[in-house]
């Protein structure tokens, strides 16, 4: 069963940029957690 076309587009369009933003956000989140733990 494949995903509906609009949903597919939502995921695959500009996938590189989306993954880059996700990676940056996760790194920021990890950094915040590390900073919290240090305090």
């Amino acid at each position: 069963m494949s995903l509906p076309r609009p949903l597919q587009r939502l995921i695959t369009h500009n996938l590189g940029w989306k993954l880059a933003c996700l990676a940056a956000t996760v790194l920021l989140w990890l950094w915040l957690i590390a900073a919290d733990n240090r305090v």
Partner: protein
Amino acid sequence: MSMALTVVDIVVVTILLYNFVLVLRGRRAMSVLSGMAVLVAIYVASAWLRLGLLRAVLSGLAPYAIIAIIVLFQSELRSYLSRLGRVRWARGVSLSGRLERREIVEEIVGAVQQMSETHVGALIVLERDTGLRTFIESGVVLDAVVSRDVLLAIFHPGAQLHDGAVILQGDRIAAAACFLPLHVNPAGAHAMELRKLGTRHRAAIGVTEGTDALAVAVSEETGAISIAWRGELERDISIDRLRDRLSHHSAGVRQGRHSEGAAQPI
């Protein structure tokens, strides 16, 4: 529960960040952002390698970074906020959306047909996935709804904005009288022909060389309609062929990847 909230948290921040990147793409500010990313990377590396002096210098700069971001990205932040405020998803992928697209194509085709018959020179660039903001900013920003009459008025000989290109973004005329990069290196079998074509056609090829935009040029001398795509010029095409290419292109803009095109972002 807290895990789910964390995921929601990360997804929301990712969407906000991605939207900001979309605003920056195609603008000079993107290289400024890249420069800032390099500084952050150097800071992280200095912390990792325990380079005290470098880290101290970069930490000293950090408090001013927020002011620098506001100043450097002033216009981008404005676009970003207005983008967030616009309800884009209300248009959705619906039948009405498709009819709207067909109407836009018909408006462009109608204008080009009339300009071709009356030998009025024109250059219309349809943006797709690659941002053309740098070129838009070189012209006069309009942000008007695409219509046959407006296009005819813009290219009317002697009108203030007739010299230069019109850039379309979806259903909007983003700007008129825009400067485009010229195709500078006509070589090969068609070199002589391209040189003879003149600035308008060379600009049509030039703008499509580095982008996925489609350019429509109408010759002032012959009234011939040409289309440029990926640096290739298709000359003297029929109205039906133009309609076909425009429909295909606009479908790629809003409906998702057709064959080689891409869709509008979220």
